[in-house]
């Protein structure tokens, strides 16, 4: 069994991560406990962030919001500020697992988990969020669009922890939607998912798509849809998404099935975002 450490501030946490053998950050622990039960966790030391102050705040910034890494996922779904500033993020976080897991799992642990099927990264990609990292050597920021490096591999380096995620506000007049399609049960991991954000800025219309569960890492693509109507936007979205889809076959579907479902998710997300914009 790994040894549990409970640092009382960020500096102590960073020192522990720098000095311990095989350390692992313990966020909400929902993924770590399952790996422990499955005998698949090989860390020797767990560094629990739950007693580190200052990691659970949701604050307004000049450009959007900053969310502390230990903020429970459920607050992203229920917090009025999140729903107002980044409605796409609020909707997407609300689709993770079930309310109990969302009450316990953390925003930092979710993205650090690095699973290709996670719901929240799709929205964070479309919204162009930044991940704030800290280690004994200092602080740095990584765009979410560079954060997922390879299958189960993220930009978090040895000795680093995530302190916050910064999400730029959804532009005025934008419209968005998240679609999650699960094949095993209503509340299961997705077989395919898509977050669509339609933005109109300086006369240009852009569709930003985050795609989940359809390739070894979550994918992002941006399409210029200026002058398009709904049907040509849908076609442009599917054409842009298709080359990014590289499914991993498993109990939730074959390659062929997930490829088809992926394009359905993209189409549904675009149509719902379009409707969202008409309703405003």
């Amino acid at each position, binding site marked *: 069994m790994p040894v549990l450490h409970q640092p009382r501030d960020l500096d102590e946490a960073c020192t522990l991560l720098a000095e311990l053998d095989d350390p692992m950050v313990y966020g909400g622990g929902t993924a770590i406990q399952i790996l422990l039960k499955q005998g698949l966790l090989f860390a020797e030391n767990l560094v629990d962030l739950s007693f580190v102050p200052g990691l659970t705040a949701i604050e307004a910034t000049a450009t959007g919001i900053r969310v502390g890494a230990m903020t429970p996922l459920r607050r992203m779904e229920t917090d009025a500020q999140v729903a107002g500033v980044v409605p796409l993020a609020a909707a997407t976080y609300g689709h993770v697992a*079930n*309310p109990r897991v969302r009450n316990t799992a953390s925003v930092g642990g979710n993205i650090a988990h690095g699973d290709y099927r996670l719901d929240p990264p799709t929205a964070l990609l479309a919204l162009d969020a930044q991940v704030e990292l800290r280690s004994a050597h200092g602080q740095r920021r990584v765009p979410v669009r560079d954060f997922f490096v390879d299958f189960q591999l993220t930009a978090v380096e040895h000795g680093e922890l995530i302190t916050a995620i910064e999400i730029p506000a959804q532009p005025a007049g934008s419209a968005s939607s998240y679609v999650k399609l699960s094949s095993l049960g209503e509340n299961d991991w997705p077989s395919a998912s898509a977050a669509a954000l339609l933005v109109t800025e300086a006369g240009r219309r852009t569709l930003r798509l985050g795609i989940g569960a359809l390739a070894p890492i979550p994918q992002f693509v941006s399409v210029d849809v200026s002058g398009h109507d709904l049907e040509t936007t849908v076609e442009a979205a599917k054409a842009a998404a298709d080359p990014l889809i590289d499914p991993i076959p498993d109990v939730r579907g074959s390659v062929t099935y997930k490829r088809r479902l992926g394009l359905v998710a993209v189409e549904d997300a675009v149509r719902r975002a379009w409707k969202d914009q008409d309703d405003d």
Partner: protein
Amino acid sequence: MRMLNLTVNGRVHDVPVDDNELLLDVLRTKVGCTSVREGCGVGACGACTVLVDGRSVSSCLALAVRHDGAEIVTADGLPGDDAVVEAFVECGAMQCGYCIPGFVLMTHELLAENPQPDAEQIAAHLEGNICRCGTYPEICAAVTSAAARGARL
């Protein structure tokens, strides 16, 4: 081992726990709350649900030592005339009963946040709980009935 201070159903308990012990095991074996049950063990069924400071948690994934000083509610600690429990009984919302403590606590959390949920909101809050006996229609009716009674913890 260290001492953990837990308030469970209004009673204070000081219990010795190991760093890696799960809240599920501590509540069952050291506090005696056997309504907290293990099903899947991985957060997916809700049999082990408890309310920690009012919020639902899968105790099968929760480290006990992170809950020092917490206020915990388990289904066996609910008052005899709890409106949610009465609604479940009157609606016949159980067969073997294994899953029901979890459903009852999820219902309390839902009604505390949203006293008059519609069918879709009920399903969205309870969809992470599994009933192997398939009592879902009766459970949904019981939640609606509990809301009509103005259930409050």
